[in-house]
């Protein structure tokens, strides 16, 4: 094959070259559905915050636009975060896991070192001065996501995923440290749950035998029991969880008010701007409890729609995970899926009395800057990966799904220089 004038030939793609450059293969149209769903969720959150803003600002004594403006600032910041993570190649993120993890741990230590006060009742926030602060655990989730994906991908590559000493032991140690630092010192059982489940699902998808997973599960259950039993505050939380309506005036107050908000929503809800519970009754109406306000305002119909949107989002993530070009990408996507879904379920579960109440935000919807920014960063990574999804993994799978549903298949030809090594082998 000779050189033709005016036509630059790309070097042939080889697995070795891809490995060397850490490239994911050919680039194609990203998953815009993913972005569309996230935008819808952000919009829903913004509308709710806007609608209850008068009630909130009346209780807090701030201007009417305070919450909406702060939320818009957070969304702008999250666009920046999204832009960065969706552009900087995942391979670079993978390489940078050490400084990233070091930064996250440092920030966690800073947060733990900062004294608590009325506005910051736990060692969770890194205060940057003024009203600027962020929750160190969100950064930690992001850093752990990348480290875990890298670590597990490495073990897969080396065929050591079932190795107790090389794989299971480091994971259990990491879990123990997190359990101590986040659950015990920061008293953040919700985020601990998210991180631990991220670890479990990523390890599971990485291929660790079921038996080992069950073992991890057993250890976690034991740790959970110890965690609950070791702190009076958590014991109270847990007994409140078991009998929320026993003490609606004291420890069960937020649970009861959340259930009242959800329950009064009925079939179609009270209507936007008609929330009563936001008027001081339900604590944290804009952040941790925003789902209850949503349910009060939009009713069962609205709740089903919202759960549908979340399920669609998770479905998108699952799709991308299935088609991920390599183990690292897949583990990133499955980590993000777990992060978003577990956080969503813990948050909603608390509002409907299925899970003990946790101070944890509802992704995209809740008011609160740190959460939105790091969730956007995580979605940015997945968005980038969605440019490189491949059908090959699926095509080799016996339970291949209907090809027509593989929406990127038609688009791949439009991407300039599209080339796929497996196309020929099919």
């Amino acid at each position, binding site marked *: 094959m000779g050189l033709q004038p005016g036509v630059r030939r790309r070097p042939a793609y080889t697995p070795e070259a891809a490995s060397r450059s850490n490239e994911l293969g050919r680039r194609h149209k990203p998953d815009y559905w993913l972005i569309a769903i996230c935008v819808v969720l952000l919009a829903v959150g913004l509308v709710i915050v806007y609608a209850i803003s008068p009630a909130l600002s009346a209780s807090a004594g701030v201007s009417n636009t305070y919450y909406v403006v702060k939320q818009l600032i957070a969304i702008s910041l999250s666009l920046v975060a999204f832009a960065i993570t969706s552009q900087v190649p995942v391979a670079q993120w993978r390489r940078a896991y050490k400084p990233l993890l070091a930064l996250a741990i440092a920030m966690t230590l800073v947060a733990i070192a900062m004294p608590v006060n009325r506005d910051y009742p736990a060692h969770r926030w890194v205060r940057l001065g003024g009203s600027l602060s962020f929750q160190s655990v969100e950064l930690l989730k992001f850093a752990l996501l990348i480290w875990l994906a890298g670590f597990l991908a490495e073990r897969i590559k080396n065929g050591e995923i079932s190795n107790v000493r090389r794989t299971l032991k480091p994971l259990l140690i990491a879990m123990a440290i997190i359990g101590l630092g986040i659950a015990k010192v920061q008293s953040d059982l919700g985020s601990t749950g998210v991180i631990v489940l991220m670890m479990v699902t990523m390890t599971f*998808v990485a*291929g660790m035998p079921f038996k080992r997973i069950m073992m991890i599960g057993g250890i976690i259950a034991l740790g959970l029991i110890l965690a609950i039993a070791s702190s009076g505050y958590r014991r109270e939380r847990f007994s409140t969880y078991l009998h929320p309506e026993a003490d609606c005036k004291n420890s069960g107050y937020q649970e009861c008010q959340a259930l009242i908000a959800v*329950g009064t929503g*009925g*079939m179609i809800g009270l209507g936007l701007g008609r929330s009563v519970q936001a*008027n001081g009754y339900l604590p944290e109406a804009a952040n941790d409890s925003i789902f209850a306000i949503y349910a009060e305002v939009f009713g069962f119909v609205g709740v089903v729609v919202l759960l549908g949107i979340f399920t669609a989002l*998770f479905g998108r993530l699952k799709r991308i995970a299935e088609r991920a070009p390599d183990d690292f990408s897949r583990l990133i996507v499955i980590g993000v899926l777990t992060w978003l879904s577990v956080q969503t379920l813990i948050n909603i579960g608390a509002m409907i009395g299925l899970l003990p109440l946790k101070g944890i935000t509802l992704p995209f919807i809740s008011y609160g800057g740190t959460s939105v920014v790091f969730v956007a960063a995580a979605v940015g990574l997945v968005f980038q990966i969605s440019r490189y999804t491949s059908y090959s993994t699926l095509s080799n*799978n016996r339970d291949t799904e209907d090809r027509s549903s593989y929406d990127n298949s038609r688009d791949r030809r439009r991407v300039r220089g599209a080339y796929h090594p497996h196309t020929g082998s099919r």
Partner: protein
Amino acid sequence: MGFPEHGTAISAVKRVRIWYALLVFVIGIFGVRLFYIQIIRYDHYKQAALADQLKQEQIPATRGIIEAHEGDSVVPVVLNQRLYTVFADPVDIKTYKTDPSKVAAAAAQVLGGSASDYEKDLKLAGTRYSVLAKKVSQQQRDTLMGYRFAGLYSEEQDYRTYPQSALASQLLGFVNDDGVGEYGVEQDLDTQLKGTPGELKAITDLNGVPLAASKNNIQKAPIAGNNLVLTLDLGMQQQLETMLAQGTKDDKAESASALIMDPNTGAIKAMANYPTYDPSQYQNVSDPSVFENAAVSSPIEVGSIMKTLTTSAALDQGVITPSTTFYDPAHWLVDGFNITDIEEDGGPGTQSIASLLNLSLNTGATWELMQMGGGQLNAKGRGIWNDYMVNHFQLGKQTGIEQGYEATGYVPSPRDNGAGIDLTYANTAFGQAMTATPLQMGAALSSVLNGGTYYQPYLVDQTISADGKTTDTKPKVVESHTVAPKVGQEMIPLMQYVVDHHNIIPAFDQSKYIVGGKTGTAQIAKPGGGYYDDEFNGTYVGFVGGSKVQYVIVVFVIKPHVAGYAGAGAAQPIFANLAHMLINNSYVTPKP
């Protein structure tokens, strides 16, 4: 890192799907749970929500003010001041995580006082109503509530103010912290004065501020209570209180009551007791008995002033005339007991009705009762006299005056009880073995002196409702024929005779005015039977007028310590001062 080994990848995809399936399953459970909460348990949560969110409260109506006459004008005696009570619900403070030190600091700044005291109130255990401050001005309240501390509340309350300070306090009564009238007019006419509270029913925010968004708000404006104008003449009341206080001290008495009423209508012109209290400081009163208007609430055995009514009844019966004379044996043996007179009365001899009253002959009053029975103490006489006491003079029952705690007094049944009923009834003829209040005695004597009409004594002259409608009280006739009109005309000179023969200095000019009276020195029953030897109550009934009787005056002095008899020594001087006061201040229209 290379391309995924397909085996791993396939297994990974499978595991992704397992995880996703688990996720969808949990979301499904959430959906079911939401259906249960929002659809099946909707009513339960709706009720729970309303219990929290729906505030139902009464808006207190403005309490009616009380005014009284002063000469030709009407001046206020009780006014309102709208103030606020600031209170906390310590449970809410805790629940809503309100910082007590912040609230306390703000309260100390706005209301004064110490922040640490407020903080204690905010943390008070075992109550959901912890008062931080009472009588807080609207401005202070608005400033403090402007901070919107969750768990801190305020409620408005009208407080009574008394422009005439302690004047007439016992007949006015006071309004307690719960806004309820106690004692006097405030108690008896509480419903009228209170008005109709408004109603507020609304979905509110946590601080109780109604939400504009809720559609089922109900608001009913309160209707203010009626304003009252009392029959009192404040000038007269003021002087009566001064004289009564002075008299009680001069008599070294335990207490005293006096009233001046219009016998031709039943209107009370002045009424007071001593000791008394300041209604604006009612919380500081240690002995609650001073709250009582003893003139209507404390009946006693009235003593010889009763002889005016016994004589009136006998005159009305026609069994005696003003000029009747009779032989007084100076003692009667009744049911084994001797009824006697005092030594100064001079022993057996012929007496007139005028001297009977003047010397205050117990044997004479007993003789009058005998005449009503046809010459003997018997069932007939007892029946007639009982009928006069109960049905004519309205003793033994409430007059119905607008006062709290009005007493009925006591009149014994005339039926033979086998235990010396004749002796008992002989005693009632001179004011023992029965009890009455000063008001009952005044109203009964009024009915004699005005020619036979028993008017219900009253204190409220006019009622002005919230819409401005004024209702004048019409004197209410309870009994139109207590005695024949001529009996009043006969009793006037008889009682003038008593005044003229009791050495009152300065004497009354009976050519321009008519001034009459009757003393009473009442024995005090011992608990458990018998009477004290050394303690008496001094009583007096009298009148002042010109061409007709214009005022009836009653004075009771409880346990005075004076030389001579309590009636003449203790009660009579107070009567004389009051009668002179009425004449000197031109309250009395002299004879033409």
